[in-house]
């Protein structure tokens, strides 16, 4: 079926179709020489870059407002509720999962996580030795294998002749979106995936209590902005 490029609602508001891609896994990308990465099992991440392919080494601040928003995303994934509507044990579970996902030893917050920097949901602003953490954590600009990603822009050819796509993400210096019951449908929220050595995949485990009943971990993708949200066109499958 051919989907319309734009839709005009009776109110006059116009909506434009997003390009939908799926990120290719290791074994289908030149980046990993068409093999599963040697450190697998490992989070199946791929960095975003500038249009010309330079990596973003500065990262995006993971401010207080984004930390609460991430907790809402996790709470909605696990309990189908907003964080502040949870009871105390549920809140504790989400804060514990948040702290685990956002640790410095985890890929999303590569050495700049909530254990070293301010953890607002946990209310932890000092290190074990009593020294104030003093700053907010940062989040690396990543996308996950098999992730559904979206672009509102036409692809561009960079100076090296490679076709690049600007993928939608949250920008750290903006406000999080208004919470709605459809929070998890936001195209800037990722499902966090691990790749195994045999090329199969599994979900991040932090929200799963019963292995027979896995809970998908979804998390907001936050970048430094439009200029740092590019990804090679040939490392994705175009869906629609």
């Amino acid at each position, binding site marked *: *079926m051919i*989907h319309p490029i*734009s*839709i005009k*609602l*009776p*109110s*006059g*508001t*116009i*909506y*434009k*179709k*997003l390009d*939908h891609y799926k990120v290719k896994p290791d074994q289908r990308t030149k980046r990993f020489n068409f093999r599963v990465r040697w450190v697998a099992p490992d989070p199946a991440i791929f960095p975003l870059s500038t249009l010309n392919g330079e990596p973003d080494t500065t990262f995006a601040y993971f401010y207080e407002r984004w930390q609460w928003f991430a907790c809402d995303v996790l709470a909605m994934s696990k*309990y*189908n*509720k907003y964080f502040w509507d949870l009871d105390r044990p549920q809140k504790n579970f989400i804060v514990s999962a948040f702290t685990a996902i956002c640790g410095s030893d985890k890929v999303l917050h590569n050495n700049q996580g909530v254990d070293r920097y301010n953890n607002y949901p946990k209310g932890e602003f000092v290190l074990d030795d009593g020294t104030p953490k003093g700053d907010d954590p940062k989040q690396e600009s990543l996308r996950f294998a098999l992730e559904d990603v*979206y672009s*509102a822009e036409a692809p561009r050819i960079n100076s090296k002749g490679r076709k690049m796509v600007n993928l*939608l993400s949250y920008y750290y210096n903006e406000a999080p*979106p208004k919470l*709605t*019951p*459809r929070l998890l*449908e*936001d*195209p800037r929220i990722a499902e966090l995936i691990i790749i195994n050595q045999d090329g199969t995949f599994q979900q991040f485990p932090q929200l799963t209590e*019963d292995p*027979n*009943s*896995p*809970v*998908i971990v979804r998390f907001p993708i936050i970048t430094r902005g439009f200029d740092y949200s590019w990804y090679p066109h040939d490392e994705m499958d175009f869906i*629609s």
Partner: protein
Amino acid sequence: MRINMTNRVTIVWSDGASVRSAPNINGTKLATLPKDTSYITESNVVNDTTEPTNPDKKWIAYGNGYIATRYPSSSGNPVRATVEIVGQTPPDSKPEFMDVIFDDGSTVKYKRIDDPSN
């Protein structure tokens, strides 16, 4: 074409529907809803988390859990609950993104084009 629906879910399976903690058969059973139970939700049908590509394994949110709308049965009819659209998000709410569901079942995401004259 459907946009930002409110759905009415009605259980049609003779034995009712189990509310499970996650959208799969292994999810902890939280409650049972009898046949003909009907409720309103702003959630959409979601895939089974253990078999996400199986078209006959679909779930929809109920409270803190999920009930099956389609699940294979010995009779061959997988329909456990019907999902009927009863409303749409008010047009003046202008969400930044919206899902549009087309007649062939495909779901496509759209982004609002900000127009200063709006």
